Structures are given as C-alpha cells and as structure tokens.
C-alpha cells in the first residue's frame, strides 16, 4: 500500500518557521484547518491571528514585508484571492513583497462547494505579474513546500494538501523542475497536485495495455520551464493530455496549449479538468468521478487521443494504484 502521511504540513511549517527569524505565521480564523494550531499554541510570539478579515490581512502582510518579514498566510486557497484580490495586487504582488500564500483545499479537495473550492486560482495567479505558483502533489512535496516557497524572491501562492496525504515521491520540491515519472514515447500526460496520483494509476494500467506513456508531474506552475516541456512533447509520437484539479481555462492545460502554439507544435492536445463549470459539495472521489478528473477519465481521454480502446476497467485501475505507487517510490529511490 501507498504510505499515507498524517498532517505533513504541521511539522514542516514549524521546522521552517523556527529556523528563520523573519518568518511569521498569519492566520485568518482557519488555524486548525490549516494545521497551524499547535504552532499557535507553541510559538505565540511568531503567530498573528488576523481574524476573518482577509482584505486587511493582505495589506497588513504587505506592510510586514516592507518591514523585512516573510509572512506565511494560511487560509483556504479560495479566500486568499477572491475577496482580497485588489489588496493582493496592490499590497503584495506589485511591490514584490516576500509574502507566502499557503492555500489549502485546492480545487475539489473540499466538500464545501462553490464558496470553498478554489477552481480558478491558478488561472488568476498566472495572470498576476511577479507571482510564483507552486502546487503540492504528495506528502513529500507538502513537507518541502515551506522551504521552496521561502526561497522565492517575491510573492508566491502555494496549493497545499492537508490531512492524510499519500507519499508518492522521495525527493523534495526543486523549484522549476518537473518530475519525469514515466519516460515512454507514445503519448505525454501532464498532471499536477492530486491528479498526479490518478495519472499514475492510469499510466500503470495503460502500460499493461501496451501503451508507452510519458508522464510529467508539475510542482512549479509559474515560472514555467517551456524548453524542457517542448523536449518532452517532441519525444512522444502522439499527442499530449493534461489532467488538472482546476478549470481547463488558465491552468496547466492552457499552459501546455500556449507552449505548443507559441512554438508551432502541431500535435493534438486534450485538456481534462473542470470544463467551464463550478463544482458542488461532495467527497473528493465522487467529485473526481463526476467531473471527469480521475484515472478512468484520463484513460478515456487517452483512448480519444490515440483513437483506440484499451478495455481498461475500474478494477484494473484499483489494482494498478498500489503497484504504480510502489514501483515509483522504488524507482525514485535508485
């Protein structure tokens, strides 16, 4: 079985914050939900409760940045850009303050419905000048997100996973470096965040069906290494498919489309994700199935991309999950 890690952010943040004098912990009434409640209790001198007042929190953090501090803002991702967008722009992004926006519950990872689901955050953040975007896809990436974020000379928005998180990788995030999980030459799968685990399930089953899959995992969405991506696109015979926990507009699907169009790559691209729709409240597994964000949806997308059926069933995918994770961990351990 894949190793499940409980609350990986909690210890990782404490370790990072206590090693850096200028790191402060800011919270907007979601302290335990963002796994910083123990930090609040243990280190009150580095913790600021700013209440349900995100607009003030953004500009306040900008002021802290002006004083040379590097505040980590903790909230659900959705609350870090929708209501306080103006403050995010004027007080943080424009002046390139070293503010670290730790956005929990990315996409449909919450049953909270429309108001809680950050489904267009990457699109919004990608269009903000000076902004960096990181996304965690497993426990190891969550454990290394604080250090990665704090290495950025400017503001950074992070999609952070919480609670029980699978460990898929055994090396920390290297900002700007995509992970090559499969190195085949038929088609290219690009995933990020929680869709990477789904893509790993799908790619294991597809390999069993004789498809040579190339699979890349992105943890750095902005800035983006277009050149390396182009090399990967060139190394497959067929097309490209993206799977994202986000609307297909402005996220990694768009990123691939832009990269391909800008460079005259005439290959087919299929973008899977939320298709110009809001989601609703429900379990992650239910929502991923309902909105076509899971391994089965990816298999169907690849069948479309390659123009053939592989007869892969949900059973094949469940079995594949365990094997894929184990084989990957071993491969990375080499």
């Amino acid at each position, binding site marked *: 079985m894949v190793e499940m890690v409980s609350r990986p952010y909690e210890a990782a943040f404490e370790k990072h914050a206590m090693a850096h004098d200028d790191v402060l912990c800011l919270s907007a009434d979601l302290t335990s939900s963002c796994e910083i409640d123990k930090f609040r209790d243990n280190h009150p001198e580095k913790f*600021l*409760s*700013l*209440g349900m*007042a995100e*607009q*003030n929190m*953004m*500009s*306040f*953090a*900008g*002021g*802290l*940045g*002006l*004083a*040379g*501090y590097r505040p980590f803002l903790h909230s659900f991702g959705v609350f870090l850009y929708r209501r306080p967008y*103006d*403050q995010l722009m*004027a*007080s943080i992004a*424009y*002046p*390139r303050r070293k503010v670290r926006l730790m956005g929990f519950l990315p996409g449909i990872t919450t049953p909270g419905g429309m108001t809680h689901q950050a489904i267009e955050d990457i699109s919004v953040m990608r269009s903000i*000048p*000076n902004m960096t975007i990181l996304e965690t896809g497993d426990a190891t990436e969550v454990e290394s997100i604080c250090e990665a974020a704090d290495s950025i*000379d*400017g503001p950074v928005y992070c999609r952070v996973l919480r609670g029980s998180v699978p460990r898929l990788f055994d090396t920390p995030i290297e900002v700007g470096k995509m992970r090559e999980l499969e190195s085949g030459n038929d088609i290219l799968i690009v995933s990020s965040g929680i869709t990477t685990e789904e893509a790993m399930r799908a790619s294991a089953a597809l390999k069993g069906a004789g498809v040579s899959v190339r699979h890349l995992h992105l943890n750095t969405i902005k800035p983006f290494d277009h050149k390396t991506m182009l090399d990967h696109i060139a190394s497959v015979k067929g097309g490209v498919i993206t799977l994202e926990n986000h609307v297909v507009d402005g996220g990694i699907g768009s990123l691939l489309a832009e990269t391909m169009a800008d460079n005259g790559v005439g290959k087919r691209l299929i973008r899977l994700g939320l298709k110009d729709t809001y989601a609703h409240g429900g379990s992650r597994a239910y929502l991923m199935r309902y909105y076509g964000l899971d391994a089965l949806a990816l298999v169907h997308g690849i069948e479309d991309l390659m123009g053939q059926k592989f007869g892969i069933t949900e059973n094949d995918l469940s079995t594949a999950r365990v094997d894929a994770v184990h084989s990957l961990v071993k491969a990375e351990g080499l």
Partner: protein
Amino acid sequence: MEQALRNEKSTEEVALGIRRRVFEHSIRNNGGYMSQACSAAEQLAWLYNEELNLGAPTLPMIPKPFEGVPHKDNPDYHTGAGYNGPVAPDLDRLFIAPAHYALVAYATLIETGRMAPEGLEMFNKDGSSVEMIGAEHSPGMEVHNGTLGIGLSTAAGLAYGRKLRGDTGNVWVYMSDGEVQEGQTWEAIAACAHHKIDNVKAIMDVNRQQCDGAMDSVMEVGDIGRKMEEFGAKVVWVNAHSIDEMRAAVKTPHTGQPLIILANSSPFEGMPTLEERFPRLHYVRFKSEDERARFNTEIAASLGIDPIDYAH
C-alpha cells in the same frame, strides 16, 4: 540637516504655499484637485513641517523620469519614499492613503524643501514619475494607495513589524473620510486594537466629500468617531485648519491603541469661490474660459497673489 529642513517657513506659510501652488497648477491645466488643497493644506503642512521625524531627502530634487515597475528584471527599482528621507529605526514613515491627493502632497514637498518646483511641472506628463494618482515611485510615496482603504492596513503591518524590530519611529497615515465606506478600514482598526499597534498614527481629512459629491448623499457613514472608538482606536476631533489643535491632539495618550485624528475640514477653505461648485468638488474642471478667468481672478485675490498668466 534635519533641523535645517524644518521651520524655514512657518507651518501657516507652508499651508498657504500649498494652496497657491495647487491653485496655479489647476488654473494652468484647466482643472485639478483644488478642493483637496483647501481641506488638507494645514494637515500636510503640519505633518511635514512639524510633526514627522524625517531625515533629509535621499533622491534628486528634480524627480527622475519613470524607471519601470517592480520586476525581477528591474533590479534598480526604488520607491519615491526617499523624498521623505531615509529609512531608519528612529524615523517616521508616512503613507498618503488617498493617492489622488498627490498634487497636494507634491506641493507640500516643494514648500518644505524636499522637491524642486520643477517637479510639479512634470505632474501627469507621459513618462514622468510625478503621477496624477500617486504611485509607489512618485515623490513622497512608498506604497500604492490608489485603491482606497488599503493604507491603514499596510501601515498596521509595517508598524507591527517595526515594533517587533524595536524601532522607535511611528508609521503615519494620511487618510480621507470617504475611506470609511470601505470595510477594510474597519478591519484595519480592529487589527490595530487587537494587536495593540500603537505606533500607528493617522490624521483623516474629514471634508465629507467624495467623488460623487457630498458623502451623505452617496452613502451615510454615521458617527465615524464613535464607531472608530468602538473598534478600538483613540480618536480626537480637531479643526483641520487649526494647527494648534493638531499640535495638541497628537499629544493624546493612546497606549495600546492606534491614534486617529479626525480633522474637520472645509473643502473650500482659503478659496471661497469654490463653494459655487459644492457638492461636486472632487475634481474641479472649469466649465468655460469665462469661468476659468473669473476663478483665476477671485481665487488669486483670496490667496493674496496676482492672477496666473496662464495664456503663456
């Protein structure tokens, strides 16, 4: 040097100079933020000429042209804060929250010897850093405040950080009363009170005007002094045109609380002709050449100067 910058003129003279400069600029340019000079002149004159503990300017007296926005590829970027002197633990900082008061703020810099008069000629010219709505890189500005309501929050964050570092300087915010319609202003006061951020001091131009006209006609805000007290600020009301009242107000003890001086102002103080335009005073543009000529004659007389020869 610090002392040399102060008290070369009386604060009353600085205030009159601000009105004269903004008036001349507005007449020459067929309009401008004249009313803001009327209401704010004594407040900004008092801050710069007496109250603020600032060092000598670190940027050229004649402002440099626009040199680009903050970007990783623009390593030499700097703000316009250098006109307020260097950053140092014991020195004060000032944010002009209503950035459309920039013209008045620039006039204040000139009157207090921090910017050359040529700076005002660059106002709102393409390629200039002396922007109409004060930007971060504009003289005397350190942060963007063109979106109203963010100034006090930014000051609170900076002040909290400065407290942590043991700085003794204050963080001042010049505010306008229209900003109290923004919820963020109340969030900021609550945050200051909750975290006992008492190195924040604000003076608010209570002229009861906003872009659409009189505030009471746009959206009533009630007793803002009482509301601010309830949110945790120490509030003192003053006559915005009485420098003595401001001098006294700033001595009010406010341990553990931000100090907000509410300055009751007249939007046509010193330029009584502007009352004809009440309540549409946000930006006064002349309706005809006849009006421009008459305002020129009348307001020049009110300010004790000759009419402006704007034809040349």
